């Protein structure tokens, strides 16, 4: 094993005597990443992880100034944007990286789905990935209220009404989240705690599991695809490519954050009537649009209840995909699941476009 040269050699030797650095390096240099015509999709997992790290760093910086009370939340965000040095940039990076993280996660998830990367022995990678999707959506929902502006307040008010119709857990869950009947101080405190403590802890644990599984099991090759070239060594060849994609991701993020800095509306007034045209963030638009399309009563069943039930069941099925796609389990092509994936993508995109334009 070659030791690094230059100034870092002594530090490396010192650490290597105390930590199994050589063993890790040896392991990673033996691990390979397949190269074929769909290899580019492997980078989106790393990009999702990168934007999550940006979330952590910028979130910690924002928490130094943010005050989670209805009296001070709005003013503290305004202070961050206008008075704190580069506060506008940190908040913009936080908000834009949240959106980019969710976008990368969707791309990563659907590419894994269409490449059937969940095939044996990678079932748990899929399950942990879908759990991460739920957690990330939770981040989006809980973070939206924090600026305490009109849009955030009323979108959360409407958003927390939707799950209420779910039998048994609906009203209990919403009550637990809101801390009372109204959206108020308790809701803001709870959303903040969930956003900065509970969700990050859960996410870090599941991400670690997901990444460890990826390192142990390696990347999957789609059924029927042959490797075009000899596989890439993970360390350092693939890692350099990953790091370069992170740099490009950061440049894209910085461009968005500086060209279109994240704004804030008027302070929320709980006594005022809800403004017209309130819409959730883009990743909740498919659910929002579906609720708009479905009538209030379908063959005697409450429309919201029906949509919630179908979405709940579909989410459960999505989590269990590796265990129900029997053809993929036998290393055979499963066109039905490919069609389901493509239809789902088309549905989500159509609902987002429809909700944004109407």
């Amino acid at each position, binding site marked *: 094993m070659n030791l690094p040269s230059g100034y870092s050699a002594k530090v490396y030797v010192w650490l290597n005597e105390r930590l199994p650095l050589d063993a890790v390096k040896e392991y990673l240099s033996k691990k390979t990443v397949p190269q074929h015509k769909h290899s580019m999709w492997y980078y989106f997992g790393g990009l999702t992880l990168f934007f999550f790290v940006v979330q952590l760093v910028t979130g910690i910086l924002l928490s130094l100034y943010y005050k989670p009370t209805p009296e001070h939340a709005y003013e503290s965000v*305004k202070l961050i*944007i*206008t008075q704190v040095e*580069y506060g*506008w*940039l940190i908040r913009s990076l936080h908000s834009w990286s949240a959106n980019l993280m969710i976008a990368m996660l969707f791309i990563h998830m659907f590419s894994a789905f269409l490449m059937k990367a969940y095939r044996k022995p990678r079932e748990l990678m899929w399950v942990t990935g879908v759990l991460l999707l739920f957690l990330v959506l939770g981040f989006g929902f809980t973070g939206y209220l924090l600026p305490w502006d009109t849009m955030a307040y009323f979108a959360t008010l409407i958003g927390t009404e939707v799950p209420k119709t779910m039998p048994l857990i609906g009203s209990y869950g919403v009550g637990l989240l809101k801390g009372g009947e109204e959206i108020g101080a308790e809701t803001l405190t709870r959303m903040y705690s969930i956003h900065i403590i509970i969700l990050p802890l859960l996410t870090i644990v599941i991400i670690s599991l997901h990444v460890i599984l990826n390192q142990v099991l390696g990347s999957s090759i789609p059924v029927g695809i042959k490797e075009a070239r000899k596989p890439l*060594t993970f360390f*350092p*060849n693939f890692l*350099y*490519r990953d*790091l*370069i994609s992170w*740099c*490009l991701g*950061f*440049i894209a993020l*910085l*461009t968005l954050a*500086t*060209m279109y*800095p994240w*704004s*804030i*509306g*008027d302070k929320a007034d709980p006594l005022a009537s809800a403004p017209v045209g309130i819409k959730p963030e883009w990743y909740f638009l498919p659910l929002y649009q579906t609720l708009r399309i479905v009538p209030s009563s379908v063959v005697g069943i409450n429309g919201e209840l029906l949509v919630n039930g179908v979405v709940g069941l579909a989410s459960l099925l999505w989590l269990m995909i590796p265990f129900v796609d029997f053809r993929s389990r036998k290393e055979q092509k499963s066109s039905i699941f490919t069609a389901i994936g493509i239809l789902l993508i088309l549905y989500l995109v159509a609902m987002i476009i429809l909700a944004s334009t109407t």
Partner: protein
Amino acid sequence: MVKRVGLLLILFLNLSAGIAQDSLKRANAIQTQPIEKGVNFPVFEDRMTVLAIGIIAVGGLAFLLSTKRRRADRWSE
């Protein structure tokens, strides 16, 4: 090799500085325009300076990583 990387880096920095200057020129025309009611972000000019510095720093890092990647690829061939 070091000279070549150095020259390319200087070229890259020059280009980036050029882009930054261009951004600043364009910014002058609209720098007094507020972005959103209630909150005025730093003027366009300042934001573009931040962007230019960011692109130079992260772009430079990407360039260095790219040269290291090429070297690593050659080693493994």
